[in-house]
C-alpha cells in the first residue's frame, strides 16, 4: 500500500494558544467576528485561518468512504477473519468500518465472506437489494471471487455472477490485514471516482433508487454526479 505522509500544516501560533493572554485575544476576535465588527483584511485573515473549503461532492464522498457500515453476514470460514477485523487487535474503527449492523436496511457494505452455494444466491441477492444506496460489495477470499477450491455443481463460480462486486480480496482465507487493505482500496475508489460503471457493465441502468419510480416515457435523466 502506498503510504502518504503529508507534512502537517504549521498550526502555530494561532491554532494553539500559547498562553492565557493569547487565548483571550482569540476569544475577543471571535466575538468581534460574530458581531460583524471584523472587516476588511482582518475578516479575510480570520476566515482563512479557520475554514477549509471544498465542494459538497467531495465532502460527501469523504463522509461516505469514512463511515461504511458492513452488514453482519458471515458465509463461511472467512467470516472468522471478518469478525477479527473489529477486534481490539485489528480495530477497523480506525477506518470507520467497524459498525456491523444486524439489518441490511442499515448497512451499506456487504462482505461476502466465504463460498456462495447456489442455494444461498437468492438470500444474498435479497440482502443486497435491501441495503441502502450507495452500497458496496467486497468479495472476500478465493471462493466468493472465483469459486476457489469448490469447483463443483453446488457453489457459484464467483459472486459477480449475480452481484456487482467492487473489490476482490485474494486469499484462502485472506488475513484480516488483507481485508482491511481491501476496505482501504474501496475507500480510495469511493473518494476518487464514484462512477464505478458497474450498472453499465451489468446492464442494470435504471435500477438506481432515484430512477425506480420515474416513468419510463419521460426518460430518466440521472443527476450529474450519480453512480449510474
Amino acid at each position, binding site marked *: 500500500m502506498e503510504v502518504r505522509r503529508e507534512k502537517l500544516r504549521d498550526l502555530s501560533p494561532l491554532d494553539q494558544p500559547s498562553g492565557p493572554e493569547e487565548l483571550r485575544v482569540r476569544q475577543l476576535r471571535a466575538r468581534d467576528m460574530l458581531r460583524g465588527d471584523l472587516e476588511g483584511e482582518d475578516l479575510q485573515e480570520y476566515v482563512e485561518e479557520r475554514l477549509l473549503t471544498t465542494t459538497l461532492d467531495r465532502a460527501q464522498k469523504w463522509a461516505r468512504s469514512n463511515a461504511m457500515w458492513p452488514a453482519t453476514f458471515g458465509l463461511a470460514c472467512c467470516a472468522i477473519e471478518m469478525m477479527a477485523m473489529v477486534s481490539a487487535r485489528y480495530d477497523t474503527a480506525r477506518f470507520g468500518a467497524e459498525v456491523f449492523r444486524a439489518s441490511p436496511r442499515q448497512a451499506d457494505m456487504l462482505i461476502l465472506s466465504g463460498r456462495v452455494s*447456489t*442455494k444461498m444466491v437468492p438470500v444474498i441477492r435479497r440482502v443486497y437489494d435491501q441495503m441502502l444506496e450507495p452500497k458496496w460489495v467486497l468479495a472476500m477470499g478465493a471462493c466468493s471471487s*472465483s*469459486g476457489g477450491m*469448490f*469447483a*463443483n*455443481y*453446488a*457453489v457459484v*463460480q464467483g459472486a459477480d455472477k449475480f452481484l456487482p462486486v467492487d473489490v476482490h480480496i485474494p486469499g484462502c482465507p485472506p488475513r484480516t490485514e488483507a481485508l482491511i487493505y481491501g476496505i482501504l482500496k474501496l475507500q480510495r475508489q469511493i473518494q476518487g471516482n464514484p462512477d464505478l460503471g458497474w450498472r453499465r457493465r451489468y446492464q442494470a441502468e435504471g435500477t438506481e433508487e432515484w430512477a425506480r419510480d420515474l416513468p419510463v416515457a419521460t426518460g430518466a435523466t440521472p443527476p450529474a454526479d450519480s453512480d449510474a
Partner: protein
Amino acid sequence: MPDAPGLELIARGLNSMAKGSVIDTSFDREQAALIVDPEHVLEVLSWLRDEPGQEYRFLSAVHAADYLPAEPRFAVHYELLSMARVERLRVKALLADPGDSELPEIDSCVELFPGAEFPEREAYDFFGIVFRNHPDLRRILMPEDYVGWPQRRDFPIGGEPVIFTHNEHEVPRWYE
C-alpha cells in the same frame, strides 16, 4: 459386531423367515454386511429390529451409493446398531438402474425407524432413489428447482476453469 459365523446365522434366520431375502453376506475388515433383496428390505429390517436375540433397535445411518460400472448399479445402505450389545450390522439393498430416466425405487423404512426420514430424503436428493411411502419425499439440501442427481457417478462435477496468467491466452477476451 457379529462374527462371521454369527452373520451366517442371521442370514439363515432371515432366509427361513422370508425365503430369498438375503442374497449374500460379506464379512470384510471385521464389518458384517447382509446383501438383501430390495423387495424384502422392510421384512429384513423389522425382523432384525424385533426378533428376540437380534434387537438392532437403532438405525444409525441410511445412505446411498452408486457403483456405476457394476450391475446392479445403486445401493441403499442401512447401518444398524444394537445398543445393548454394541454390535453393528450393515444391510445393503442393491438396486438396478431402470434406465430411460426412470428412477430406482425401494420401500421407505420411516414406519420402522422414524429417524430415517431425513437420510432418505438426502439419498433421494443426491442419487434420485425413490423411497415408496415416504411421508415427505422432496429435496433436502439442493435447491427445490434443481434438475439432476448430483452425486451419481455420471453427473458432471461442474465448476469452470479459473483464468490465471498462465492460461489466460486460452480464453481470449475473457474480460469482456
